[in-house]
């Protein structure tokens, strides 16, 4: 079971934040096929958000085929959900990122500067691809 968090200052609509957290949990194998998502009532009670927001996020995930809702039983990750990225792939990448972050901090960059730099590099990389 995953616990949702909300970043109120991000400006990203709440239902999109919920969707992205489920996708990410599936991508990294934290949620696997057959796993249950928290009930709308649980999410609402924990985060103090509108019930329709949770339903909207779950509906969108269902439309994408990531989850399926069974009335009275709950919402579950489907067998058709995207395969998680293999640990053998993301673990080494994460380790090298950690080393890179350590280097950046050593060079005097703070958290925000590091995030900005990552954002810029991502943009460069993906815009080159489009062009």
């Amino acid at each position, binding site marked *: 079971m995953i616990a949702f968090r909300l970043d*109120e200052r991000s*400006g990203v*609509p*709440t239902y999109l934040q919920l969707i992205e957290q489920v996708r990410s949990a599936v991508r990294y194998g934290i949620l696997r096929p057959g796993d249950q998502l928290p009930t*709308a*009532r649980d999410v*609402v*009670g*924990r*985060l*103090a*958000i*509108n*019930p*329709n*927001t949770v339903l909207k996020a779950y509906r969108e995930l269902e439309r994408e085929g990531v989850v399926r809702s069974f009335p009275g039983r709950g919402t579950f990750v489907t067998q058709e959900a995207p395969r998680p990225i293999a640990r053998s792939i993301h673990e080494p990448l994460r380790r090298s990122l950690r080393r890179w972050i350590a280097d950046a901090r050593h060079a005097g960059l703070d958290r925000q500067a590091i995030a900005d730099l990552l954002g810029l590099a991502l943009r460069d990389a993906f815009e080159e691809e489009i062009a």
Partner: protein
Amino acid sequence: MSLALEAVNVSKRFGRVLALNDCSFAVPAGRIVGLVGPNGAGKTTLLHIAVGLAEPTSGRVHVFGISAREDILGVLSRVGFVAQERPLYRGFTVADMLELGRRLNARWDFAYARQRVANAGVALDRKIGSLSGGERAQVALSLALGKRPELLLLDEPLGGLDPLARRSFLQELMSTAAESGVTVILTSHEIAAIERTCDYLVILGRGRAELAGDIDTVVGSHVAVTAPSRYEEFIRTHSAIVDTERTERQISALVRVSQAVDWPTGNGLQVRPVNLEELVLAYLRRARLERTTK
């Protein structure tokens, strides 16, 4: 679509002051509604008329199709109302208040109300006067929910609550809405709380509904445009301006668009989405400007 509440051309005069001025809007059942507006916009008056605590000078407020004027008991059996400052008898214990609720209401779910009070961690033998603001708010909410209302009206429910109490109050309220489907109308100045908890918005200004609708829809139908002054004409013909700020060379406007506009971006004209707070502020500013220039 069934309506939980409908205001039809409601006016209310207090002496020389017109608190509500031909106010009309509708709230579909099942929604959680944020009713916002500056102090004195008529929010409280409107809620009072809905439950029969005040009489409109003209017009009607219907609750599930009936007005308090025609059938006060019919309205009261379906509506839970928590007034500003949550008036409760200070000398009563929580148990006394629950008993009072049982005697005053034809329909009363004692076990449910008691369970809610227990969930909030409030002992039944506590005196109302000894409760913290947060505990009082939870008890008042439990009492309003004890009659299992279909519509819950909360006037400034977050007023006077510290952030933690506010959070637990909203958690309780949202869980209740999720399990019972009760329609909620709450007034508040806290836009962040409204953004989080509400899915329907009503903006009152000048005693009128400036805007009413599904929050995602109304936010999505407004944009902020910044452009050189020469584009003002274009902006005016393609959208409805809610609020503007002008400098010598530039205009920035929050506008409502009824259909997709092909904005001539790139020549110094920029368009971006707006958030709920900007939207509410723009409407409130407009209401105030029109009032002072009237």
